[in-house]
């Protein structure tokens, strides 16, 4: 697999080597080797069931929480294997935020408490620090102006798009290095989607972003790099425009021309 010219010599933020994952009897990922560049948006595309969700869930060690889940291979974050025996998965998850397909704010918590949950539940009690983190994260997620006067309202009282930005703010508050997004806009309308996409392009200044999407327009709009997965294999990785205009693999071409689902 040849690296795009723009990435030669770039130290990857995340690198997987022979990453395999599955459930009890079946492998879903069959050895993924990929290099994710820092401070860029990388889109993961591929037909339904090819293992995109499983892949990103391996990157923050969430996959292993599913009963029967298995993982093999390496996933190097800044060169260190997050699957090393001595690595604490909880510490890994603090460095790698995640935004889920369906907005999932904590229903019993206020907007404020949702945002600072990661800090407060990890023992941060300093009110000033929490307030600061709440405001910064909500600003970062472009939600501050919409909620600043109702921070004590329930997180569940927001619209779907606002809830998703709340979930992004919640992920930002713990100051991760990488943010994983699994089809973050699939439950949202076009306006809310546009907001999240704009947000993503802003966030890459400070974060490395990996986004799963089914939508090629979306990948073109937000992603610097795109990778195509098929049946648990990474088929191709390249600069987004390049991959869509001149796919090197036949499978990629068939996918982007809509020849299969």
């Amino acid at each position, binding site marked *: 697999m040849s690296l795009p010219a723009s990435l030669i010599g770039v130290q990857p933020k995340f690198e997987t080597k022979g990453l395999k994952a599955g459930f009890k009897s079946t492998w879903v990922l069959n050895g993924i080797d990929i290099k994710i560049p820092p401070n860029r948006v990388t889109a993961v595309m591929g037909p339904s069931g090819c293992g995109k969700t499983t892949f990103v869930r391996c990157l*923050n060690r*969430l996959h292993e*929480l599913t*009963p029967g889940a298995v993982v093999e291979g390496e996933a190097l974050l800044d060169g260190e294997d997050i699957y090393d025996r001595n690595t604490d998965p*909880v*510490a*890994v*998850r*603090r*460095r790698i*935020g*995640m935004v*889920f397909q*369906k907005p*999932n*704010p*904590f*229903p*019993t*918590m*206020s907007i404020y*408490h949702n945002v*600072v*949950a*990661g800090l*407060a*539940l*990890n023992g941060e009690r300093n009110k000033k620090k929490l307030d600061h983190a709440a405001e910064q994260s909500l600003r970062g997620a472009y939600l501050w102006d919409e909620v600043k006067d109702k921070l*004590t*309202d*329930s997180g*569940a*009282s927001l619209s779907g798009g606002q809830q998703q930005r709340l*979930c992004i703010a*919640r*992920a930002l508050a*713990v100051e991760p290095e990488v943010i994983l997004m699994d089809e973050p806009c699939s439950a949202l309308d076009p306006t809310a989607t546009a907001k999240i996409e704009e947000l993503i392009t802003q966030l890459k200044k400070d974060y490395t972003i990996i986004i799963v999407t089914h939508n090629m327009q979306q990948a073109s709009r937000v992603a610097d790099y795109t990778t195509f997965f098929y049946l648990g294999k990474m088929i191709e990785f390249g600069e987004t425009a390049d991959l869509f205009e001149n796919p090197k693999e036949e499978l990629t071409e068939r996918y982007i021309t809509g020849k299969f689902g």
Partner: protein
Amino acid sequence: MKGLILLSVAIAIIPLFLVVANVVVEGLPAISSGFFTGIPPSPLAGYGGILNGIEGSLLMVGMGTLIAVPLGVGAGIYFSEWPESRLSFLSSFTNDVLAEFPTIVIGLFVYALVVAPTRTFSAVAGALALAIIELPIIARTTEESLKIVPITLREASMALGIPRWKTIFRVVISTGKSGLATGILLGIARATGETAPLIVTAGYLNYPPTGLFQQTGSIPYIIYNFGTAGYPNWITVAWGAALVLVAFMLILNLSVKFFIGRKSTGVRAEI
């Protein structure tokens, strides 16, 4: 078909309605403010009060609940969050058996455990019996109410780098807490109405309790004891006590409805 269903509903409700109506009609004459401050009367000497029963029941149900809540909630959390463990399977099974156990047998067990060695009926023994009766109810409702907390919330929490036990205590339980409260209320309701185990553990005292290791009266015992006696005023006292008990149950059940019906949204978490 719908007519048949309505008919069977009516038939099912009628006995309940008759019982409640009967309790109200027969018990109301006994009720006055003195009924809550006095002690049961001598034969043919007015209606007195059931303070000994009220205080005894409060004491024993209260202590029993204090014992049963931490154990029951703890067990429920364990069943819900570690279902794959073998201990969980075993104790969950035990819990089911215990829930169906004849309460008189639980009473006899506590008799052998506490009453016989201490050589006295006592509030402690009564409370222990009630705790054992409440335990499986609280454990099961805790388990059920935590199991329905969506996995997506647990994952959201874990993905923030919040450890599993904190996720359970601060996110899962906080989300399922109305179910927990319901379970505790159901346990209290069940314990408050129990008679048989108290007969063999707490006995009866015609005065409000003054110590934990003495015979202790309770509302159900008053109903049993005075309702089967031959004096008309005693029988009315029993009905009055029954009315107090039924009213208490009604309030508890309404509270349960309140907790179940309440939306979890809009509630501030106390982080």
